[in-house]
Protein backbone atom coordinates (compact mmCIF):
# COMPACT_ATOMS: atom_id res chain seq x y z
CA UNK A 1 0.00 0.00 0.00
CA UNK A 2 2.98 2.28 0.48
CA UNK A 3 3.47 2.51 -3.26
CA UNK A 4 -0.12 3.50 -4.04
CA UNK A 5 0.10 6.40 -1.62
CA UNK A 6 2.83 7.87 -3.75
CA UNK A 7 0.59 7.86 -6.79
CA UNK A 8 -2.45 9.56 -5.36
CA UNK A 9 -2.70 12.06 -8.21
CA UNK A 10 -2.48 9.57 -11.02
CA UNK A 11 -5.63 7.75 -9.81
CA UNK A 12 -3.84 4.59 -8.75
CA UNK A 13 -5.38 1.52 -10.26
CA UNK A 14 -4.51 -0.79 -7.41
CA UNK A 15 -6.60 1.40 -5.10
CA UNK A 16 -9.75 1.09 -7.18
CA UNK A 17 -9.07 -2.58 -7.78
CA UNK A 18 -8.77 -3.40 -4.11
CA UNK A 19 -11.84 -1.30 -3.41
CA UNK A 20 -13.83 -3.21 -5.99
CA UNK A 21 -12.48 -6.45 -4.60
CA UNK A 22 -13.66 -5.46 -1.16
CA UNK A 23 -17.06 -4.66 -2.59
CA UNK A 24 -17.11 -7.97 -4.41
CA UNK A 25 -16.22 -9.92 -1.29
CA UNK A 26 -18.80 -7.99 0.73
CA UNK A 27 -21.43 -8.82 -1.87
CA UNK A 28 -20.54 -12.53 -1.79
CA UNK A 29 -20.52 -12.60 2.00
CA UNK A 30 -23.84 -10.85 2.45
CA UNK A 31 -25.53 -13.09 -0.11
CA UNK A 32 -23.86 -16.19 1.27
CA UNK A 33 -27.06 -18.06 2.17
CA UNK A 34 -28.87 -17.43 -1.14
CA UNK A 35 -25.84 -18.15 -3.33
CA UNK A 36 -24.92 -21.26 -1.42
CA UNK A 37 -28.50 -22.50 -1.74
CA UNK A 38 -28.47 -21.80 -5.46
CA UNK A 39 -25.14 -23.59 -5.83
CA UNK A 40 -26.35 -26.69 -3.96
CA UNK A 41 -29.48 -26.72 -6.12
CA UNK A 42 -27.33 -26.68 -9.25
CA UNK A 43 -25.13 -29.45 -7.86
CA UNK A 44 -28.19 -31.59 -7.24
CA UNK A 45 -29.66 -30.87 -10.67
CA UNK A 46 -26.39 -31.75 -12.35
CA UNK A 47 -26.43 -35.03 -10.35
CA UNK A 48 -22.95 -34.44 -8.97
CA UNK A 49 -21.64 -35.82 -5.67
CA UNK A 50 -24.30 -38.50 -5.54
CA UNK A 51 -22.12 -40.58 -3.27
CA UNK A 52 -22.70 -38.01 -0.52
CA UNK A 53 -25.82 -37.27 1.54
CA UNK A 54 -27.64 -33.93 1.41
CA UNK A 55 -26.28 -32.85 4.78
CA UNK A 56 -22.75 -33.72 3.81
CA UNK A 57 -23.05 -31.77 0.58
CA UNK A 58 -24.40 -28.83 2.56
CA UNK A 59 -21.51 -28.95 5.03
CA UNK A 60 -18.87 -29.29 2.30
CA UNK A 61 -20.53 -26.59 0.20
CA UNK A 62 -20.45 -24.21 3.14
CA UNK A 63 -16.78 -24.66 3.80
CA UNK A 64 -15.90 -24.60 0.09
CA UNK A 65 -17.91 -21.40 -0.32
CA UNK A 66 -16.21 -19.76 2.67
CA UNK A 67 -12.71 -20.69 1.64
CA UNK A 68 -13.56 -19.60 -1.90
CA UNK A 69 -14.55 -16.14 -0.71
CA UNK A 70 -11.56 -16.06 1.60
CA UNK A 71 -9.23 -16.91 -1.29
CA UNK A 72 -10.78 -14.08 -3.31
CA UNK A 73 -10.40 -11.71 -0.41
CA UNK A 74 -6.84 -12.50 0.56
CA UNK A 75 -5.81 -13.25 -3.03
CA UNK A 76 -3.68 -16.14 -1.78
CA UNK A 77 -4.17 -19.75 -2.66
CA UNK A 78 -2.35 -21.44 0.22
CA UNK A 79 -5.42 -21.90 2.38
CA UNK A 80 -7.35 -23.12 -0.65
CA UNK A 81 -4.57 -25.55 -1.53
CA UNK A 82 -4.54 -26.99 1.97
CA UNK A 83 -8.31 -27.21 1.99
CA UNK A 84 -8.40 -28.87 -1.45
CA UNK A 85 -5.90 -31.51 -0.33
CA UNK A 86 -7.87 -32.12 2.84
CA UNK A 87 -11.17 -32.30 0.97
CA UNK A 88 -9.75 -34.74 -1.59
CA UNK A 89 -8.44 -36.96 1.18
CA UNK A 90 -11.95 -37.14 2.63
CA UNK A 91 -13.96 -37.65 -0.56
CA UNK A 92 -11.71 -39.87 -2.70
CA UNK A 93 -12.40 -42.96 -0.59
CA UNK A 94 -16.12 -42.28 -1.16
CA UNK A 95 -15.65 -42.73 -4.88
CA UNK A 96 -16.00 -39.11 -5.94
CA UNK A 97 -14.70 -38.64 -9.48
CA UNK A 98 -12.46 -35.93 -10.89
CA UNK A 99 -15.22 -34.56 -13.14
CA UNK A 100 -17.48 -34.10 -10.09
CA UNK A 101 -14.95 -32.10 -8.14
CA UNK A 102 -14.06 -29.92 -11.11
CA UNK A 103 -17.77 -29.71 -11.93
CA UNK A 104 -18.85 -28.33 -8.56
CA UNK A 105 -16.08 -25.73 -8.47
CA UNK A 106 -16.99 -24.55 -11.98
CA UNK A 107 -20.65 -24.44 -10.95
CA UNK A 108 -19.78 -22.25 -7.99
CA UNK A 109 -17.79 -20.00 -10.30
CA UNK A 110 -20.82 -19.72 -12.61
CA UNK A 111 -23.29 -19.10 -9.78
CA UNK A 112 -21.16 -16.30 -8.41
CA UNK A 113 -20.54 -14.83 -11.86
CA UNK A 114 -24.28 -14.74 -12.52
CA UNK A 115 -24.93 -12.93 -9.28
CA UNK A 116 -22.30 -10.39 -10.30
CA UNK A 117 -24.03 -9.99 -13.69
CA UNK A 118 -27.35 -9.26 -12.05
CA UNK A 119 -25.77 -6.86 -9.56
CA UNK A 120 -23.85 -4.80 -12.11
CA UNK A 121 -25.98 -5.31 -15.26
CA UNK A 122 -26.86 -1.63 -15.43
CA UNK A 123 -23.23 -0.54 -15.77
CA UNK A 124 -21.43 -2.63 -18.42
CA UNK A 125 -18.09 -0.90 -17.89
CA UNK A 126 -18.10 -1.54 -14.17
CA UNK A 127 -19.27 -5.11 -14.78
CA UNK A 128 -16.30 -5.66 -17.06
CA UNK A 129 -13.90 -4.31 -14.46
CA UNK A 130 -15.41 -6.51 -11.78
CA UNK A 131 -15.16 -9.55 -14.03
CA UNK A 132 -11.54 -8.63 -14.80
CA UNK A 133 -10.84 -8.98 -11.11
CA UNK A 134 -13.09 -11.93 -10.49
CA UNK A 135 -12.30 -14.23 -13.41
CA UNK A 136 -8.53 -14.76 -12.98
CA UNK A 137 -8.97 -15.37 -9.27
CA UNK A 138 -11.88 -17.75 -9.82
CA UNK A 139 -9.98 -19.69 -12.47
CA UNK A 140 -6.91 -19.92 -10.28
CA UNK A 141 -9.07 -21.36 -7.50
CA UNK A 142 -10.67 -23.89 -9.86
CA UNK A 143 -7.26 -24.99 -11.06
CA UNK A 144 -5.97 -25.25 -7.50
CA UNK A 145 -8.81 -27.50 -6.46
CA UNK A 146 -8.52 -29.71 -9.54
CA UNK A 147 -4.76 -30.04 -9.18
CA UNK A 148 -5.10 -30.76 -5.47
CA UNK A 149 -7.60 -33.49 -6.21
CA UNK A 150 -5.52 -35.12 -8.93
CA UNK A 151 -2.38 -34.89 -6.81
CA UNK A 152 -4.11 -36.61 -3.91
CA UNK A 153 -5.36 -39.35 -6.22
CA UNK A 154 -1.91 -39.90 -7.63
CA UNK A 155 -0.50 -40.10 -4.14
CA UNK A 156 -3.01 -42.80 -3.27
CA UNK A 157 -2.24 -44.71 -6.46
CA UNK A 158 1.47 -44.57 -5.75
CA UNK A 159 0.88 -45.77 -2.21
CA UNK A 160 -1.20 -48.70 -3.43
CA UNK A 161 1.34 -49.64 -6.07
CA UNK A 162 3.98 -49.73 -3.38
CA UNK A 163 1.77 -51.93 -1.21
CA UNK A 164 1.01 -54.33 -4.06
CA UNK A 165 4.65 -54.56 -4.93
CA UNK A 166 5.66 -55.44 -1.40
CA UNK A 167 2.91 -57.98 -1.08
CA UNK A 168 3.74 -59.63 -4.35
CA UNK A 169 7.33 -60.66 -3.71
CA UNK A 170 7.66 -62.89 -0.68
CA UNK A 171 10.88 -64.80 -0.06
CA UNK A 172 10.01 -67.91 1.92
CA UNK A 173 12.18 -70.38 3.75
CA UNK A 174 10.86 -73.93 3.33
CA UNK A 175 13.76 -75.79 4.90
CA UNK A 176 16.94 -74.85 6.66
CA UNK A 177 18.98 -73.00 4.00
CA UNK A 178 16.38 -73.47 1.27
CA UNK A 179 14.37 -70.50 0.05
CA UNK A 180 11.58 -70.29 -2.46
CA UNK A 181 10.66 -67.19 -4.37
CA UNK A 182 7.26 -67.62 -5.98
CA UNK A 183 6.70 -64.99 -8.64
CA UNK A 184 3.16 -64.30 -9.79
CA UNK A 185 1.86 -61.88 -12.36
CA UNK A 186 3.44 -59.44 -14.70
CA UNK A 187 7.07 -58.52 -14.15
CA UNK A 188 8.26 -55.14 -15.34
CA UNK A 189 11.83 -54.05 -14.95
CA UNK A 190 11.10 -52.17 -11.72
CA UNK A 191 9.55 -55.22 -10.11
CA UNK A 192 12.33 -57.41 -11.47
CA UNK A 193 14.89 -55.20 -9.76
CA UNK A 194 12.97 -55.36 -6.52
CA UNK A 195 12.70 -59.15 -6.73
CA UNK A 196 16.43 -59.45 -7.18
CA UNK A 197 17.12 -57.19 -4.26
CA UNK A 198 14.77 -59.08 -1.95
CA UNK A 199 16.14 -62.43 -3.03
CA UNK A 200 19.78 -61.46 -2.55
CA UNK A 201 19.11 -60.00 0.87
CA UNK A 202 17.00 -63.04 1.71
CA UNK A 203 19.92 -65.28 0.80
CA UNK A 204 22.15 -63.41 3.16
CA UNK A 205 19.81 -63.16 6.12
CA UNK A 206 18.65 -66.79 5.88
CA UNK A 207 22.11 -68.05 4.93
CA UNK A 208 20.50 -69.91 2.06
CA UNK A 209 22.40 -72.41 -0.05
CA UNK A 210 19.69 -73.15 -2.58
CA UNK A 211 16.93 -70.91 -3.91
CA UNK A 212 14.01 -72.12 -5.97
CA UNK A 213 12.61 -69.35 -8.16
CA UNK A 214 9.16 -70.43 -9.26
CA UNK A 215 7.73 -68.58 -12.23
CA UNK A 216 4.70 -70.78 -12.87
CA UNK A 217 2.54 -67.71 -12.30
CA UNK A 218 4.32 -65.64 -14.92
CA UNK A 219 2.73 -66.03 -18.34
CA UNK A 220 5.37 -64.26 -20.38
CA UNK A 221 8.35 -62.00 -20.01
CA UNK A 222 10.22 -59.83 -22.45
CA UNK A 223 13.89 -60.17 -23.26
CA UNK A 224 14.93 -57.47 -20.77
CA UNK A 225 13.24 -59.17 -17.86
CA UNK A 226 14.47 -62.60 -18.96
CA UNK A 227 17.97 -61.22 -19.01
CA UNK A 228 17.41 -59.81 -15.57
CA UNK A 229 16.37 -63.25 -14.36
CA UNK A 230 19.63 -64.68 -15.64
CA UNK A 231 21.56 -61.90 -13.88
CA UNK A 232 19.72 -62.72 -10.66
CA UNK A 233 20.71 -66.38 -10.92
CA UNK A 234 24.33 -65.36 -11.47
CA UNK A 235 24.25 -62.91 -8.55
CA UNK A 236 22.90 -65.63 -6.29
CA UNK A 237 25.84 -67.78 -7.27
CA UNK A 238 28.26 -65.02 -6.27
CA UNK A 239 26.64 -65.11 -2.84
CA UNK A 240 27.29 -68.82 -2.70
CA UNK A 241 23.74 -69.96 -3.37
CA UNK A 242 22.49 -72.12 -6.21
CA UNK A 243 19.32 -71.00 -7.93
CA UNK A 244 16.86 -73.38 -9.54
CA UNK A 245 14.26 -71.85 -11.83
CA UNK A 246 11.02 -73.80 -12.05
CA UNK A 247 7.75 -73.63 -13.91
CA UNK A 248 8.95 -72.04 -17.11
CA UNK A 249 6.10 -71.64 -19.56
CA UNK A 250 6.75 -72.60 -23.21
CA UNK A 251 6.83 -68.90 -24.16
CA UNK A 252 9.38 -68.04 -21.50
CA UNK A 253 11.47 -71.05 -22.48
CA UNK A 254 11.53 -69.74 -26.03
CA UNK A 255 12.42 -66.25 -24.89
CA UNK A 256 15.32 -67.57 -22.83
CA UNK A 257 16.65 -69.63 -25.72
CA UNK A 258 16.19 -66.74 -28.13
CA UNK A 259 18.25 -64.36 -26.03
CA UNK A 260 20.94 -67.04 -25.94
CA UNK A 261 21.11 -67.85 -22.23
CA UNK A 262 23.97 -70.13 -21.29
CA UNK A 263 21.87 -72.98 -19.95
CA UNK A 264 24.90 -74.54 -18.28
CA UNK A 265 24.75 -71.72 -15.74
CA UNK A 266 21.07 -71.96 -15.05
CA UNK A 267 19.46 -74.89 -13.25
CA UNK A 268 15.88 -75.48 -14.25
CA UNK A 269 13.20 -77.94 -13.22
CA UNK A 270 9.78 -78.60 -14.70
CA UNK A 271 7.64 -77.59 -11.76
CA UNK A 272 7.97 -76.35 -8.20
CA UNK A 273 7.86 -79.88 -6.78
CA UNK A 274 10.69 -80.97 -9.03
CA UNK A 275 12.65 -77.89 -8.03
CA UNK A 276 12.22 -78.49 -4.32
CA UNK A 277 13.14 -82.16 -4.69
CA UNK A 278 16.27 -81.21 -6.59
CA UNK A 279 17.12 -78.62 -3.94
CA UNK A 280 16.65 -81.16 -1.16
CA UNK A 281 19.01 -83.51 -2.95
CA UNK A 282 21.61 -80.74 -3.16
CA UNK A 283 21.26 -80.04 0.55
CA UNK A 284 21.46 -83.74 1.44
CA UNK A 285 17.86 -84.15 2.58
CA UNK A 286 16.05 -87.38 1.94
CA UNK A 287 12.31 -87.22 2.31
CA UNK A 288 10.43 -90.47 2.75
CA UNK A 289 6.97 -91.29 4.12
CA UNK A 290 6.87 -92.35 7.79
CA UNK A 291 4.20 -94.98 7.10
CA UNK A 292 1.54 -95.97 4.62
CA UNK A 293 -0.68 -92.98 3.90
CA UNK A 294 -3.85 -92.97 5.98
CA UNK A 295 -6.95 -94.15 4.14
CA UNK A 296 -8.87 -91.16 2.94
Amino acid at each position, binding site marked *: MGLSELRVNSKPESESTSELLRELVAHLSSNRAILREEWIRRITTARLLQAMSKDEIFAEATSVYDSYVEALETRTLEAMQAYAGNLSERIIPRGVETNEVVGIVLLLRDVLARSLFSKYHSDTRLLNTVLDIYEPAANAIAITVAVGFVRERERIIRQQQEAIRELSTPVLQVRERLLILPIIGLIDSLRARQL*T*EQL*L*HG*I*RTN*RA*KVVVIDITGVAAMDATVANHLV*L*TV*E*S*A*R*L*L*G*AKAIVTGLSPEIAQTLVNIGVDLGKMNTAGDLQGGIEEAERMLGYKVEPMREPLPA
Partner: protein
Amino acid sequence: MQVPILKQGPFLIATIQSALTDADIVQLRDALVEQVGRYRSRGVIIDVTALDVMDSFATGTLQDVANMLRLRGAETVIVGIQPNVAFAMVHMGLTLDRVTTRLDLEEGLDHLNRAMKSAFQR
Protein backbone atom coordinates in the same frame (compact mmCIF):
# COMPACT_ATOMS: atom_id res chain seq x y z
CA MET B 1 46.86 -50.99 2.53
CA GLN B 2 48.31 -54.44 2.79
CA VAL B 3 45.93 -57.36 3.17
CA PRO B 4 46.79 -59.66 6.10
CA ILE B 5 47.05 -63.32 5.19
CA LEU B 6 46.44 -65.78 8.02
CA LYS B 7 47.39 -69.41 8.02
CA GLN B 8 44.62 -71.63 9.34
CA GLY B 9 45.57 -75.30 9.21
CA PRO B 10 45.90 -76.35 5.61
CA PHE B 11 44.25 -73.14 4.40
CA LEU B 12 45.14 -69.49 3.98
CA ILE B 13 42.66 -66.77 4.78
CA ALA B 14 43.02 -63.28 3.32
CA THR B 15 40.56 -60.78 4.75
CA ILE B 16 40.27 -57.55 2.83
CA GLN B 17 39.55 -54.81 5.34
CA SER B 18 39.14 -51.67 3.30
CA ALA B 19 38.95 -50.50 -0.29
CA LEU B 20 42.05 -51.57 -2.21
CA THR B 21 44.04 -49.84 -4.89
CA ASP B 22 45.00 -51.80 -7.97
CA ALA B 23 48.55 -52.07 -6.62
CA ASP B 24 47.27 -53.54 -3.34
CA ILE B 25 45.35 -56.20 -5.23
CA VAL B 26 48.38 -57.14 -7.32
CA GLN B 27 50.41 -57.34 -4.12
CA LEU B 28 47.78 -59.62 -2.57
CA ARG B 29 47.90 -61.84 -5.65
CA ASP B 30 51.69 -62.16 -5.53
CA ALA B 31 51.71 -62.80 -1.79
CA LEU B 32 49.07 -65.54 -2.06
CA VAL B 33 50.74 -67.31 -4.96
CA GLU B 34 54.01 -67.29 -3.06
CA GLN B 35 52.65 -68.32 0.37
CA VAL B 36 50.57 -71.20 -0.98
CA GLY B 37 53.86 -72.84 -1.93
CA ARG B 38 55.60 -71.91 1.31
CA TYR B 39 52.89 -73.31 3.60
CA ARG B 40 51.82 -76.12 1.27
CA SER B 41 48.24 -74.86 1.55
CA ARG B 42 45.38 -76.76 -0.02
CA GLY B 43 42.90 -73.94 -0.12
CA VAL B 44 42.67 -70.16 0.01
CA ILE B 45 39.75 -68.06 1.18
CA ILE B 46 39.53 -64.43 0.14
CA ASP B 47 37.00 -62.52 2.24
CA VAL B 48 35.62 -59.45 0.49
CA THR B 49 32.84 -58.62 2.99
CA ALA B 50 34.26 -55.14 3.55
CA LEU B 51 34.21 -54.19 -0.12
CA ASP B 52 31.23 -52.24 -1.34
CA VAL B 53 32.62 -51.93 -4.86
CA MET B 54 34.25 -54.55 -7.04
CA ASP B 55 35.47 -53.18 -10.36
CA SER B 56 36.64 -55.07 -13.40
CA PHE B 57 40.28 -54.93 -12.37
CA ALA B 58 39.60 -56.38 -8.93
CA THR B 59 37.35 -59.08 -10.35
CA GLY B 60 39.79 -59.91 -13.12
CA THR B 61 42.69 -60.15 -10.68
CA LEU B 62 40.72 -62.39 -8.30
CA GLN B 63 39.93 -64.61 -11.27
CA ASP B 64 43.66 -64.68 -12.09
CA VAL B 65 44.49 -65.52 -8.48
CA ALA B 66 42.08 -68.47 -8.61
CA ASN B 67 43.61 -69.75 -11.85
CA MET B 68 47.19 -69.33 -10.60
CA LEU B 69 46.45 -70.99 -7.25
CA ARG B 70 44.82 -73.91 -9.03
CA LEU B 71 48.06 -74.37 -10.97
CA ARG B 72 49.90 -74.27 -7.62
CA GLY B 73 47.60 -76.97 -6.26
CA ALA B 74 45.17 -74.97 -4.12
CA GLU B 75 41.50 -74.17 -4.46
CA THR B 76 40.26 -70.60 -4.09
CA VAL B 77 36.99 -69.59 -2.50
CA ILE B 78 35.76 -66.02 -2.51
CA VAL B 79 33.39 -65.23 0.33
CA GLY B 80 31.30 -62.33 1.55
CA ILE B 81 30.27 -60.63 -1.67
CA GLN B 82 27.52 -58.18 -0.72
CA PRO B 83 24.12 -58.52 -2.45
CA ASN B 84 24.37 -55.13 -4.16
CA VAL B 85 27.94 -55.77 -5.21
CA ALA B 86 26.94 -59.16 -6.63
CA PHE B 87 24.22 -57.68 -8.76
CA ALA B 88 26.39 -54.80 -9.96
CA MET B 89 29.18 -57.23 -10.92
CA VAL B 90 26.87 -59.51 -12.85
CA HIS B 91 25.38 -56.50 -14.58
CA MET B 92 28.82 -55.55 -15.82
CA GLY B 93 29.44 -59.12 -16.96
CA LEU B 94 31.95 -59.83 -14.17
CA THR B 95 30.64 -63.23 -13.19
CA LEU B 96 33.80 -64.88 -11.77
CA ASP B 97 32.88 -67.90 -13.84
CA ARG B 98 35.39 -70.47 -12.74
CA VAL B 99 35.76 -69.39 -9.13
CA THR B 100 33.93 -70.91 -6.19
CA THR B 101 31.98 -68.36 -4.20
CA ARG B 102 30.38 -68.81 -0.78
CA LEU B 103 28.26 -66.69 1.50
CA ASP B 104 30.76 -66.07 4.28
CA LEU B 105 33.92 -67.33 5.92
CA GLU B 106 32.17 -70.18 7.70
CA GLU B 107 30.67 -71.47 4.46
CA GLY B 108 33.99 -71.10 2.71
CA LEU B 109 35.82 -73.15 5.33
CA ASP B 110 33.05 -75.74 5.26
CA HIS B 111 33.39 -76.04 1.50
CA LEU B 112 37.18 -76.46 1.64
CA ASN B 113 36.95 -79.03 4.47
CA ARG B 114 34.52 -81.11 2.44
CA ALA B 115 36.68 -80.81 -0.67
CA MET B 116 39.72 -82.01 1.34
CA LYS B 117 37.77 -84.93 2.77
CA SER B 118 36.53 -86.13 -0.56
CA ALA B 119 40.03 -85.76 -1.99
CA PHE B 120 41.40 -88.08 0.74
CA GLN B 121 38.70 -90.63 0.12
CA ARG B 122 39.60 -90.93 -3.51
